[in-house]
């Protein structure tokens, strides 16, 4: 057992701001997840044509001028919306928060594809004469853009950068924020992840070429991890940012606490560009459990990464079977079945979909599992209908990505 850390080293979540394809606040989102409401809809994108996607409808102009929206990127806009909502939710006295002591850590799967594709597309109309290439291209496509736009919008002068971690990035953003608070690099961390990926045709076309792009006559039933008839990924946009603080600071100001970042781990498969590796996933999960000082059977909900690909879902289930196969009270679910794969936002959005379980004691379902794939039949899998729990003290959140990056977060009820 690990000795408890002093409160100055314990990191807690005190604010959540998000936009998901089925909700623009935590309460809307949670309600959609408990009521089985999908956010996937028909979608059309240049060159690829008609497909499906998880599309967000947050009001960008709530926190940005139209001019800011025009000049910036969708990822920046999503980040601003989420960060502003998180700060409001945290009840911080924002006017008196020392802005140089706020850090911004945004996980991204990719950035710049959308803006580059748009520029090349319009350049075609000028016969590829580069004097028609926009001067906005560089500030829009630098890798720190989504975090930098938050800094500009909110007047934050502490560190800002993105964490590129493929689809493990949402967890990685939160982990980075927690680490920076522990190192005293900031007093408030705005940490999470964003995705603008539905606006790049390349990601759809690449998944399609890989045989990994989902299709279904009914959009709401297209994202179906663990189902025998699953046929790939539904790409989604979205974002989720947390206000993270040291527990000592949060308690001193009487903040409401969603949970504590009790454990985390990131590791690498070092085995394949795209295929997951259950051995390394197990190691990552076990490392996060060790850091949290908890045993597998103390985890109440495992929020899976599964994306709806044939291979990926089976490999994750192998890992889950090995770690949680004997845990009678651990429930397992999947949020992507509702919203699709929100890429850089996926990890943190999926964790957020499950954090309210610490209060309402419900485990949201995995929808669209009409015929469970026998290879995904892990004990505790909650399918089709939400399930009442014994009470939720620990949520473990998996988030994995291409090039073999694994990330796991364990959050404890405080």
């Amino acid at each position: 057992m690990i000795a408890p850390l002093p409160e100055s080293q314990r990191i807690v979540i005190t604010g959540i701001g998000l936009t998901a394809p089925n909700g623009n606040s935590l309460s809307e989102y949670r309600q959609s997840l408990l009521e089985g409401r999908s956010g996937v809809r028909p979608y059309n994108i240049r060159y690829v044509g008609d497909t499906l996607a998880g599309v967000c409808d947050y009001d960008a102009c709530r926190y940005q001028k139209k001019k800011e929206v025009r000049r910036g990127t969708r990822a920046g806009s999503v980040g601003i919306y989420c960060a502003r909502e998180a700060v409001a939710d945290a009840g911080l006295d924002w006017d008196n928060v020392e802005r140089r002591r706020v850090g911004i850590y945004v996980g991204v799967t990719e950035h710049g594809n959308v803006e580059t594709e748009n520029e090349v597309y319009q350049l075609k109309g000028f016969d590829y004469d580069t004097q028609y290439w926009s001067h906005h291209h560089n500030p829009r496509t630098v890798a720190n853009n989504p975090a930098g736009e938050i800094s500009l919008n909110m007047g934050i002068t502490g560190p800002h950068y993105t964490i590129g971690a493929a689809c493990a990035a949402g967890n990685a953003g939160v982990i980075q924020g927690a680490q920076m608070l522990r190192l005293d690099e900031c007093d408030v961390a705005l940490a999470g992840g964003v995705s603008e990926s539905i606006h790049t045709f390349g990601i759809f076309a690449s998944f399609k070429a890989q045989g990994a792009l989902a299709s279904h006559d009914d959009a709401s039933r297209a994202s179906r991890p663990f189902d025998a008839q699953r046929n790939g990924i539904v790409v989604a946009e979205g974002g989720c940012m947390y206000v993270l603080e040291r527990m000592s600071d949060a308690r001193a100001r009487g903040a409401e606490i969603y949970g504590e970042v009790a454990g985390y781990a990131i590791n690498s498969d070092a085995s394949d560009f795209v295929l997951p590796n259950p051995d390394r996933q197990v190691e990552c999960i076990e490392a996060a459990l060790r850091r949290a000082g908890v045993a597998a059977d103390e985890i109440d909900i495992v929020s899976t990464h599964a994306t709806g690909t044939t291979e990926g879902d089976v490999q994750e289930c192998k890992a889950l079977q090995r770690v949680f196969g004997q845990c009678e009270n651990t429930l397992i679910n999947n949020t992507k079945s509702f919203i699709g794969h929100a890429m850089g936002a996926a990890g943190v959005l999926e964790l957020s979909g499950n954090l309210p379980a610490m209060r309402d004691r419900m485990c949201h379902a995995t929808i669209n599992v009409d015929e469970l794939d026998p290879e995904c039949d892990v004990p505790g899998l909650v399918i089709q209908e939400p399930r009442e729990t014994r009470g939720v003290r620990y949520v473990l959140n998996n988030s994995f990505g291409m090039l073999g990056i694994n990330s796991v977060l364990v959050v404890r009820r405080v």
Partner: protein
Amino acid sequence: MTSDQIRDEVLDILQDIAPDDDVSQLKDDVPFREQLELDSMDFLDIVMELRKRHRIQVPEEDYPQLVSLQSTVAYLEPMLRDVQKV
């Protein structure tokens, strides 16, 4: 294009660049920057839009000519005189 048409065209460009403002209220003889929140990137947007819409090249030394609605229209008139309004 007549000078009135050129003026409308410049206002159209400005409205895209400054969507939060009502550019129809602009005073012709007062610098844009005193009436709108325009920075150097916005100014480059004006130059780029003129290039894209009318293939007009505004050399850097002529940028001061684009200071106000009045001076911009005067600067563009000789270039757009023979261009038909689309």
